[in-house]
């Protein structure tokens, strides 16, 4: 008896004296429930104050699984009232499995009014299910801004792991929203705001007894973008049924005016959750609507690369403006019989730099590339920003390829052949560029030789409040120190492209402002596969149409790049699209009225 009693006393001593701190913490955790208060996410505006992303209030059905004996039965009964798909059930079960004490699991988001009424009248049957007011993200322009803005969606397990690694886990709850892709992802920390906390004393059933402490949520900051939603819409519509991208920016400060990738997607599907069918449709669509073509799509630049090669030739004194050559319709490397053909079979006759740009003479650039050689070409392409990130405020962008001897050795384990250089000369070799890179490089011609870091933010709302996250601006531009004489030569030639005799003469006709541009038509080929079936001339194998431009030519305020996938000729397809966008831009500027 004594031994048994001593045993009890020892155990009590262990619990109450040795481990008392541990159990006191446990008791406090029991007693105090810390529930999060969601912050209001910052809104997103375009440059004229149009709302691109906003929050609306609606109701979600929440489930408090803690202490519930048979959650499956509740779900089954509930799904007789309110539709719950099998996928949602799977998600709900997973969430219940790892949810903490007293934390709720969302059963359904954004209930309709009918569903709310139906549930309310049956609420007595579901004491563990409640309606809760929630803020949902809404994108009024839908597909039009999908690639630009991205979306928010319910946080996933992998999101939580990433946040854990960055030490940001504490700022999010298990059923929180998080920005994915686009502006929503890049400026997540700004838009999100700060989670508030309520410390509430609860009893064993989770009933709230009294508020112990409350830290209010801090709303996220709103952002004003440099995007003009009216121009964005014009660009989107101008692309018509084509897949492609258009990027327009102000060449003076790098602020992006339009940022279109087509096709887009419906961002609300991400906010409220997909059903399996529409998700796999989106994923597996051959049009690849989830790829942001404007900054992550890579294309052979075709002849739109010629202005930059021309500048390289002038700057390196390999060419003078007046130097001319006879174009027989092809070029051969001295000592080789292989003929690199011009797009014009009979040739362009006597060609100087001006004519080479205006008529897009391939032979001229074959020869120029051959004489510049790949090392110098690589240097200049790199200077113009190709083959590297532009630094735009988006979470991802492709770097494309500015080919070099090094690059080819690493990529293909093969030396660089002189023939490789020739096709680079017409933007048709190993080069790959993003529409964004092309637009930024074009802007550097327009602004007299500054490669700007493009930016999507208009106002420096962020800088004032958020340290470390500074808005990209014109001061981060990189001067190329090009001679203004060389630049003038090129710019005059690019204006010529839009006039009679130029490759985009029809698109340039009748404009009330001067345009400088360059067309490009890129043959579709795959760097990876390398082989394609010549016989099946499907739409997917037609040439990409490209066009770069800036205007007004004498004092540019807009520069742009268009890529129309499988569109055909740059002059006939891409240039008219650019013209529509430029017209819309100057119309609204002249009227001074906010578009839309």
């Amino acid at each position, binding site marked *: *008896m004594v031994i*048994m*009693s001593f*045993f*009890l*006393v020892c*155990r*009590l*001593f262990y*619990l*109450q*004296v040795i*481990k*008392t701190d*541990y*159990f*006191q913490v*446990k*008791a*406090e955790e*029991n*007693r105090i429930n810390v529930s999060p208060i969601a912050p209001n996410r910052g809104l997103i505006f375009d440059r004229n104050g149009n709302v691109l992303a906003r929050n609306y209030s609606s109701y979600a059905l929440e489930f408090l699984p*803690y*202490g519930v004996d048979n959650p499956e039965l509740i779900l089954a009964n509930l799904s007789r009232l309110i539709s719950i798909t099998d996928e949602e059930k799977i998600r709900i079960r997973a969430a219940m499995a790892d949810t903490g004490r007293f934390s709720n699991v969302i059963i359904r988001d954004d209930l309709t009014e009918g569903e709310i009424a139906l549930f309310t009248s049956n609420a007595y049957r579901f004491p563990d299910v409640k309606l809760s007011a929630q803020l949902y993200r809404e994108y009024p322009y839908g597909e039009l801004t999908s690639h630009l803005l991205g979306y928010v969606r319910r946080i996933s397990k992998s999101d939580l792991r990433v946040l854990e690694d960055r030490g940001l886990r504490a700022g999010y709850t298990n059923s929180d929203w998080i920005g994915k892709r686009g502006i929503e992802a890049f400026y997540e920390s700004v838009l999100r705001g700060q989670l508030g906390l309520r410390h509430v*004393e*609860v*009893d*064993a*059933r989770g009933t709230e*007894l009294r508020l112990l402490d409350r830290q209010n949520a801090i709303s996220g900051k709103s952002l004003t973008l440099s995007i003009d939603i009216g121009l964005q819409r014009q660009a989107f519509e101008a692309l018509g049924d084509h897949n492609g991208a258009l990027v327009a920016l102000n060449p003076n400060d790098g602020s992006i005016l339009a940022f279109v990738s087509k096709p887009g997607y419906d961002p609300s599907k991400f906010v409220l959750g997909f059903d399996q069918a529409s998700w796999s449709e989106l994923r597996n669509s051959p049009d690849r609507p989830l790829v942001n073509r404007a900054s992550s799509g890579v294309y052979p630049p075709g002849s739109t690369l010629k202005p930059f090669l021309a500048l390289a030739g002038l700057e390196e004194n390999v060419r003078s403006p007046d130097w001319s050559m006879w174009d027989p319709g092809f070029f051969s490397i001295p000592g080789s019989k292989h003929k690199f053909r011009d797009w014009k079979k009979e040739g362009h006759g006597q060609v100087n730099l001006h004519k080479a740009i205006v008529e897009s003479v391939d032979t001229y650039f074959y020869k120029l590339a051959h004489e510049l050689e790949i090392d110098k070409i690589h240097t200049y392409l790199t200077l113009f920003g190709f083959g590297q990130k532009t630094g735009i405020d988006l979470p991802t962008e492709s770097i494309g390829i500015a080919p070099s001897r090094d690059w080819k050795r690493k990529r293909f384990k093969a030396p660089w052949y002189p023939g490789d250089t020739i096709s680079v000369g017409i933007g048709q070799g190993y080069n790959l560029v993003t529409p964004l890179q092309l637009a930024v490089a074009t802007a550097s011609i327009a602004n007299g030789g500054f490669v700007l870091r493009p930016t999507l933010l208009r106002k420096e709302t962020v800088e004032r409040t958020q340290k470390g996250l500074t808005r990209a601006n014109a001061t981060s531009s990189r001067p190329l120190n090009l001679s203004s004489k060389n630049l003038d030569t090129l710019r005059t030639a690019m204006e010529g492209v839009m006039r009679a005799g130029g490759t985009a003469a029809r698109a340039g006709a009748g404009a009330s402002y001067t345009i400088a541009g360059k067309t490009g038509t890129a043959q579709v080929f795959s760097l990876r596969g390398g082989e394609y079936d010549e016989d099946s001339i499907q739409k997917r194998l037609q040439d990409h149409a490209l066009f770069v431009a800036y205007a007004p030519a004498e004092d540019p305020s807009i520069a742009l790049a268009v890529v129309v996938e499988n569109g055909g000729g740059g002059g006939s397809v891409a240039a008219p699209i650019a013209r529509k966008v430029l017209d819309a831009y100057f119309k609204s500027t002249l009227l001074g009225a906010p578009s839309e």
Partner: protein
Amino acid sequence: MSFSLRLKNELTKRFDFPLLILVLLLMAVSLFALYSSSQGDVAKVSAQAKNFIFALIVMWSVAKIPFGYLSRLALPLYCLALILLVLTMLVGDQAKGAQRWLDLQVIRVQPSELMKIALPLTLAWYFDRFERVLRPRHYLFAIFLLLIPTILILKQPDLGTAILVLASGVFVIFFSGVSLRIIGFIVTLTVLLMPFAWSVLEPYQQVRILTLLNPSSDPLGAGYHTIQSTIAIGSGGFWGKGWLSGTQSQLNFLPEGTTDFIFAVLAEEFGFIGVLLVFLIYFLLIWRSLTIAIQAPNNFSRLAAMSIVLTFFIYAFVNIGMVIGVLPIVGVPLPLISLGGSSAVTISIGFGVLMNFRANHRLVQT
């Protein structure tokens, strides 16, 4: 001698005052703990007070029974309890999945409680009667007398009471002068019967035993009681959180805080020091009872008293053991502290019997 003096003498002469005072102290502790764990429910406290008053009257009555009657009452009491147990099994009331109560129109009784007293008295009477002619077959019959009610109670199911009834009988057999050989035989038999016993247990009882080994395996289910009570006890610390200030009990995290888990309320609010005080009262109570048992007037009373004391100890030990998470949860109340009339009455009968023996010990010696 005046009438009032005679009355006073008559009322008190059979009470053993040390025992009475210790019982009253535990009852006082009970009322305080109950007031706290019921969150100031006066109805519960006064119900318990009524239970105690009734129990004290019963105690006094039992103490007053003429000494010789007790041994003669034993066997009829056992038979009655056995009949009631069988009846309970057949027509008893269902409550919380168990069939423990029998409605006799006038009064609802828990026959298993009656058995707690009847069994040790009967076995003591039995061994007293066959003291000089004990053969192994007598022991086998004693084990038979013991196992019948135990199994009936186990099937109600009420593991806690079954253990207490079993223990009370085993103590009598143990103190009856049984040889070590037979004890060894019983121990071996017990070990061999373990797997069988496991299969006799209800699934929920098996779960409780398994949960004890690893409470966190099912924190919201079977392990919940143990986890919450150890949190309550541990968080009480050395000095306790103070009366009415235990968060675990006041906010209902502690289940069964007024009944089986009332010890955790004491431990949380009065701390290690309060727990030691309660232990001290129990210790003195058992000490006094043991003294009575040792000085008991004859073989029957010695055996019965030993069994009653040791069963009382096991009672408290099993309850505290399960509340502090070292024994499985078997539903044994804390004697004289947990809310509940029947266990208080049964225990009081036990102490009444002890007082009865005490009052007669000199009588026989002279």
